[in-house]
């Protein structure tokens, strides 16, 4: 009976099957998980830190720890991405402890350069840089909601699952985050670059 249920779950959720393979030491499963989640974790660090190089290094470290601790991951407790975010969160805290002052990182290498003119790129750069700085002024939870909603394109329900919060709380958090960002944009003038 348990086997049937497990098989049913694996049929429904291919991600869980992938994780289970990884837990059993399947190298290809790890490769697949890296492909799937590396961009997400990188964006998390990218908007949380002022240093793109540090974001790259910490992203790599998240997946090292994923390998080291994947046996302890239990799917019913939390989504796998939430588990990865937790690892990233702890690394972020360590990073802040070690670096007393934040450094401004060059944004150029992260911006797509194709199909936009130099003027557009400059404008985009300025606006992106401005918003990126403003995003750092949000609380961690507000940042997380903005990041997952607008960069990961996740619904409020999915974000609620990741954050272990009610969906209504996530919507309220989203509202406060956008309101705070809007006020900051007006104050600094980011929106005038449009």
């Amino acid at each position, binding site marked *: 009976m348990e086997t049937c249920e497990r098989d049913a779950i694996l049929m429904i959720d291919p991600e869980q099957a992938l994780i289970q393979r990884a837990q059993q030491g399947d190298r290809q499963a790890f490769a697949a998980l890296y492909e799937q989640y590396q961009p997400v974790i990188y964006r998390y660090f*990218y908007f949380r830190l002022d240093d793109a190089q540090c974001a790259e290094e910490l992203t*790599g470290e998240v997946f090292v720890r994923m390998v080291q*601790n994947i046996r302890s991951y239990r799917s019913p407790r939390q989504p796998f991405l939430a588990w990865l975010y937790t690892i990233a969160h702890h690394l972020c805290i360590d990073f802040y402890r070690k670096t007393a002052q934040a450094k401004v990182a060059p944004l150029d290498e992260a911006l797509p350069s194709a199909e936009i003119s130099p003027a557009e790129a400059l404008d985009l750069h300025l606006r992106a840089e401005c918003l990126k700085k403003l*995003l750092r*002024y949000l609380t961690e939870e*507000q940042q997380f909601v903005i990041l997952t909603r*607008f960069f990961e394109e996740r619904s409020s329900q999915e974000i609620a699952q990741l954050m272990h919060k009610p969906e209504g709380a996530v919507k309220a958090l*989203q*509202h406060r985050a956008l309101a705070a960002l809007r006020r900051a944009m007006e*104050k600094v003038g980011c929106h005038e670059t449009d």
Partner: protein
Amino acid sequence: MKPIEILLDECLRRMEQGERLEDCLAAYPQQQAALRPLLEAAAAVRAIPAPVAPAAAFEKGRAQMFAAFDQEFLAPPVSKSTLSRYTEQIIAWITGKENLDMNLIKRLAIALTIVMVVLAGLGTTAVSASNALPGDLLYPLKASAQSAQLMFTFDQHAREELQHHFEAETRDDVRTLMNTQRPASVNFIGVLEQIDGDTWTIGGLPVTVDATSALNGTPAIGNRVHVLATVQADGSILARRVIVAPPDAGKKPDFDGAYPPPGGAYPAPGQTGTPVHEQDQDHDQEQEHDRDQDHLRKTATPAAPTPTAASATSTASSQYNEDWFCHKCVTPTAKPQDSDHANESDPPTGDDPSNHSNSGSADDHGGASGDNSSGGNTGGNTGDQHHEDDTHPDDHGGGHDSGSGDHGSGHD
């Protein structure tokens, strides 16, 4: 009307599906003023190109992950024993090469706790036994402890001193029973200090020796006597049997038929020097004889090889007294007849099967006393990473208004 955060979420979802901002606002004309700045901010954020890690960083991260994979999943299994691994960890910790594994600390702590609990239990039992009185459940344990202490005291003089100390301790126990008027069978040794009719003073204790009391030997003032008695409800001590130790019984007892004297010079009850062998022939007396034997069995300690051991002057619980009493006076196999004293002349030896039976009783007695990881942390709750109360209406509005670095540092 729906709350603004619900309308905002609905508009964001419609815009994600391709609807224009103006169209969404037109759907909620009364909330346009509130929704517009929020949706514009959302649109501005959405316009930011999603950052992508450089290809080199992507590959580097993957290589790091596979290196960790090789170490975690392809490394040879640990073949060392648990003990050697723990030993190595402790040495590494002492030498400062690495931190002590928390699992090891936990296991050591558990083991230490168990040892401490066991020791505390044993200590409590020992203390309780040391305070036990005759008749108590733990009293045999106390007697065994005394006997063991004597056994491992090899200096003759020290052993004699210890023997006298235990005898005095036993008399103190009897005195306590008297004072508390607690009935119990007792068994002690002391010097016969005074005879005043039925009341004898033995080792400082007043003992009633009446017609029901059996006497073995010829008591005289200054003799060491072994008393089997009962502390009665009124606190008095009624002797069931008084046995006179041979003159040197306190030091080196001689069991070669010299004691008691052939012919049995047993004093009558209440008197000295009067034979009491007629009473010994009495059936009731014989029953008491058996009771005494049972009593000795209960209070006996593990047998010494021979009754001629220097511990012959032990307290009621000592091997010497047991042998002295059992083999010289009331041999279990003795029949209720005059000739039962004939057994007393048989020198008990270590090879005597009856000794073994005594040993068995001692064993019974002994039996009676016996009755008495960082990864694990990182894998924690996601909620740990969120410290803000999401129900707070405007938790960071002020900071955002200012747009100053103060807020950012506070956030950090």
